[in-house]
């Protein structure tokens, strides 16, 4: 696993749409688990649903798999409406959160299960060969005859993966597949999953509440909240152009300063904070004068400076310092802005000397680094 080489990103995923959600809603009694979802899944892409627990990610996935029918709206596979097509008729496979491996079957029998259901029947040697190749692919050769309970968590995870990909599905759905693994294994599996996706060319749809997992593996991320899709985009788009405060907080970390829009220029917006301080920044969406907004500044875009003679920037005192190796994270306090995080590269410290707790410094950022976001 650790020797997994890095497989470079293939050509851009094609523009063919393989699956689609059109105004899909799902109600469970009074609970609205999915609320007017609109989404096109492109052939060959790695798409993630990211959101906190209970926001409806699993429900969206289960509607694609065929375990739930939408209350309203349409689910399309290959341009055909499949709302009421049963799961066993869909060319889609799922890796379940707790793997759902069959305890009464061996590893080999588990992986061959989907192939054995196909009609007309596949010849035994064909099945055996496919199973063998897939076992090799997930590096489990030699484990054919093992029972599921004789396998470790990481191995079970790979059996579950093999059981799905051996069928070459049009869509591979993964529900928090790495949640049960320990941190180190999770890292390795992230790389392995990404490599598998690229080498097989299968479309992956992954559900996770772990932003790092979504950011590191996905071509596109679909941010969800309370059954709704908030924003869809590449990890970079979401990081640089978050639609609102919720997205900015979910994708990476950021500092937020609440205020009201007091002036809109051609490319800069000024925001008056509660303490009377005025911050400049760029608006991401439509921002109106007088609107309640927040100014978001990423910790790594803030500079700390020792020279007190310079007038630009905000005078701050260092209240905490965490050494992270190549970076250092400072918690600094400004009398009007309050406390916020700053991430500085090692080079700054080498140039300007280490900043200690209690030091008074100047914090500054480019106006372009400050994003004016809807406060939702």
């Amino acid at each position, binding site marked *: 696993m650790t020797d997994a080489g890095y497989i470079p990103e293939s050509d851009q995923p094609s523009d063919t749409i393989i699956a689609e959600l059109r105004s899909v809603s799902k109600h469970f009694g009074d609970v609205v688990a999915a609320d007017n979802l609109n989404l096109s899944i492109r052939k060959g892409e790695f798409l993630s649903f990211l959101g906190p627990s209970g926001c409806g990610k699993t429900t969206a996935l289960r509607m694609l*798999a065929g*375990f739930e029918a939408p209350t309203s709206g349409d689910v399309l596979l290959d341009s055909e409406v499949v709302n009421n097509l049963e799961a*066993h*008729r869909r060319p889609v496979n799922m890796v*379940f959160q707790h793997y759902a491996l069959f*305890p009464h079957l061996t590893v080999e029998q588990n992986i061959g*299960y989907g192939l054995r*259901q196909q009609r007309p029947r596949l010849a035994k040697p064909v099945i055996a060969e496919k199973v063998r190749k897939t076992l090799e692919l997930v590096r489990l050769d030699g484990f054919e005859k093992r029972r599921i*309970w004789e396998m470790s968590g990481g191995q079970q995870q790979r059996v579950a993966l093999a059981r799905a990909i051996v*069928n070459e599905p049009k869509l591979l759905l993964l529900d928090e597949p790495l949640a049960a693994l320990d941190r180190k294994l999770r890292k390795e599996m992230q790389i392995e999953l990404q490599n598998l996706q690229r080498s097989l060319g299968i479309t992956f749809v992954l559900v996770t509440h772990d932003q790092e997992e979504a950011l590191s593996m996905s071509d596109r991320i679909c941010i969800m909240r309370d059954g709704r899709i908030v924003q869809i985009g590449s990890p970079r788009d979401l990081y640089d152009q978050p639609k609102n405060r919720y997205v900015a907080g979910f994708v990476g970390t950021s500092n937020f300063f609440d205020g009201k829009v007091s002036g809109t220029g051609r490319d800069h917006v000024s925001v008056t904070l509660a303490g009377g301080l005025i911050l400049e920044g760029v608006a991401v969406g439509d921002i109106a004068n007088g609107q309640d907004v927040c100014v978001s500044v990423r910790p790594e875009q803030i500079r700390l400076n020792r020279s007190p003679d310079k007038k630009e920037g905000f005078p701050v005192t260092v209240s905490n310092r965490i050494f992270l190796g190549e970076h250092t994270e400072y918690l600094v306090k400004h009398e009007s802005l309050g406390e916020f995080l700053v991430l500085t590269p090692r080079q700054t410290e080498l140039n300007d000397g280490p900043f200690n707790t209690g030091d008074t410094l100047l914090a500054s950022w480019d106006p372009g680094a400050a994003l004016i976001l809807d406060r939702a």
Partner: protein
Amino acid sequence: MRLYAIFVYMFLYIPIGVIALFSFNAGRHASQLQGLSTKWYGIALSNPFVMDALETSLVVAFISATCASLFGTMAAVALQGIKGPVRTAFDALIYISVMIPGIVIGIATLIGLVTIFDQLNPLIVAIWPNGIEPPQLHMGFASLIAAHTLFLMALVIIIVRARLSGMDRSLTEASSDLYSTPFGTFRQVTLPLIFPAILAGFLLSFTFSFDDFIVAFFVAGSETTLPIYVFSSIRRGVTPEINAIGTMVMAVSLIMLVTAQILLRRGERRNK
């Protein structure tokens, strides 16, 4: 407290122990131990009446347990799929039928069957073609099996339901995700996983039917099962032969109960 428990257990098990001990009596009286021997076992097993009754009991137990396992499993699987008040009602009825004393089931089945037979027999006579002797419905082999199947079904339902509800729902979902039809899923996933419970249900049912005296007493008609034979011989006096029969029945029952228990335990572990 512990002393009290010891007394309770002694009260329960000493008579059974005494029966087992006296079945090895060399003498001919049930109340006097005169040396040990297995001769009464030989006498019991060569008594044609005993062997006849044993055969009836075994056949009834086997057929009843088979039917109860089959129908009970079907009912359990069906009940698993429904929710709401219907399910609550069924659950309540099933538990009630397990807790009702055997004598009530015996009398109720007798009255029920007699009423039905009284209605049906004239009807059969009426529709039967002239010249051929019309058959008469009466108590006997079939009514005995029907009564046993009925009350054993509840037992099987409870055992199989416990296993079904302990089974991870995502296993059947995974199976249908892997292109298996609902029936295919039942055959390839559900059935193998609940099979130990079904087998345990079968063994328990077999034991209960084999041991049953009360229900059989009411509905067996002219058939003689082993417990009925023992009951009628006791009226002519308890001999060591009866003790030998009792001990053999008990041994067979114990073996089946222990096997059932092992099956249930092992299934539980595997489903984890």
